[in-house]
């Protein structure tokens, strides 16, 4: 259940251009979080929370990992926090990915940029549950590549960069035909990437993780709407998502 929690920073490190990996200690979050959920991070001096996905879970040591890209005032401030400091957050927030538990199943994970971390969290869990995992990870350039080795340990991994400075040159969608058959796909990344993927993979069983600017982060303010094919005509990304079945929402 989502709660307001204090998490203690036990490590923080820049692991790629503008990209920080932060390890946070908290019993409630680490024990209850599932892949695809996020933390809604509340910082003094900022009116609104910053949603950041969980990238890794270590239940034993009560640690969760987040990865974030420094893009504006909030992530810049967060990057300045140091080991030992505490951050406030609502979490675990939202709903995670549905999980398979079957060694005959193959899933495809497609991550773009800072959408890669939640794919890792998911892939690691699926691999643990003996699912076959394939991963296509797209980055702008070589400088932004993250978690390649980690993915190699859990999945057959393909890297693409927009400019070809690392891995294949091009977009993640260019590789969709080249990977083996899969039963289900999961994706997280920039909206145009997700749109391209759901377009190409229409009819396939797929789950997408969406982003939107949030107010409350809990489902009360109606800031984070996405048109949907249900009775009310919409879903809330913060509380109904951020994970949706591909055909459930209109993107």
């Amino acid at each position, binding site marked *: *259940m*989502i*709660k*307001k929690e204090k998490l203690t920073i036990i490590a923080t490190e820049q692991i790629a251009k503008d990209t920080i990996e932060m390890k946070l200690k908290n019993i409630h979050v680490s024990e209850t979080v599932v892949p695809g959920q996020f933390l809604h991070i*509340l910082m003094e001096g*900022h*009116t*609104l*929370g910053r949603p950041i996905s969980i990238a890794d879970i270590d239940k034993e040591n009560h640690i969760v990992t987040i990865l974030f890209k420094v893009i504006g*005032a*909030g992530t810049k401030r967060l990057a300045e926090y140091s080991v030992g400091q505490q951050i*406030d957050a*609502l979490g675990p927030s939202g709903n995670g990915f549905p999980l398979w538990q079957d060694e005959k199943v193959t899933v495809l994970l497609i991550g773009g940029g800072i959408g890669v971390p939640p794919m890792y969290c998911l892939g690691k869990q699926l691999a643990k549950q003996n699912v076959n995992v394939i991963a296509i990870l797209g980055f702008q350039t070589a400088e932004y590549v993250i978690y390649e080795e980690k993915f190699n340990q859990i999945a057959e991994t393909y890297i693409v960069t927009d400019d070809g400075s690392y891995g294949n040159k091009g977009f993640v969608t260019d590789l969709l035909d080249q990977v083996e058959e899969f039963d289900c796909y999961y994706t997280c990344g920039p909206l145009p990437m997700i749109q391209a993927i759901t377009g190409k993979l229409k009819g396939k069983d797929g789950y997408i993780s969406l982003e*939107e*600017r*949030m*107010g*409350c*982060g*809990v*489902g*009360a*303010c*109606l*800031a*984070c*709407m*996405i*048109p949907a094919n249900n009775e*009310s*005509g*919409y879903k809330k990304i913060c*509380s109904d998502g951020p994970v949706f079945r591909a055909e459930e929402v209109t993107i």
Partner: protein
Amino acid sequence: MSELAVAMPGLNLNNPIMPASGCFGFGREYSNYYDLSELGAVIMKAATGTARLGNPTPRVAETASGMLNAIGLQNPGVDKIIEHEVQFLAAYNTPIIANIAGSTIEEYEMVAAAFNKTDHVHALELNISCPNVKEGGIQFGTNPVMAAKVTERVKRVSKLPVYVKLSPNVTDIVAMAKAVESAGADGLSMINTLTGMQIHLPSKRPLIANKTGGLSGPAIKPIAIRMIYEVKQRVDLPIIGMGGICNAEDVLEFLLAGASAVAVGTANFGNPLVCREIIADLPDVLNRFGFASVQEAIGKAVFV
């Protein structure tokens, strides 16, 4: 009467703290954080005649000590609100205030009349910061004649006390308050948001898809205090004060300026427990500044 209690038309509040309309939905989400019965009252998200889908996204943006929003009155329509949401909130031991909105006077009347059907709503908050589609889109809340007219018509159909929620985007807030007072308002609620805009540099577009949005949060508190002060000097109606309240000291500032109770909006987003925490802190703050009760502090700022 306990030190935190306040009585206003239709409202016997155990304490003066309520979540502001639109910042608390219909309470469901925050009921996971604490018992809503602790609140002075709950002000619901705006209700319109029929369901509305609201504006395109992005609908919110952060600003210095504040935020912009253009949710666009998204709501399931007054009937569903009464059926599902009022029903849900009625289980708590806290008065319910229904915020009502519309595009025409007739829609306001229809929504107001609909709330006569339930016994669980204790007051209406008349949100006049809506464009009047029959008058070229001018907001009801920026024209004293239109504001008075919608107030009068709603008063006529409703059995509930009506608190008119004033827009701060006006030259003369006292004229607006007087207009709705003479139209029969039972109280005032102030202030709604100030119209603002933020431009996203990479896209060169307004960050809010609706272009403009309503500015709320601590940034606007000095404007809220000034307007409540001005109105309190000249108009006799009880005031529900709001605009940037974050803590119990802020509440006392609003009480001193002339508010009888307050609503907390934006601050819920930074801390879902903020209303509960303010209620817990308020007795201490009152005592620290020499007041035995909320009632005693109302309007006690010294302006001479």
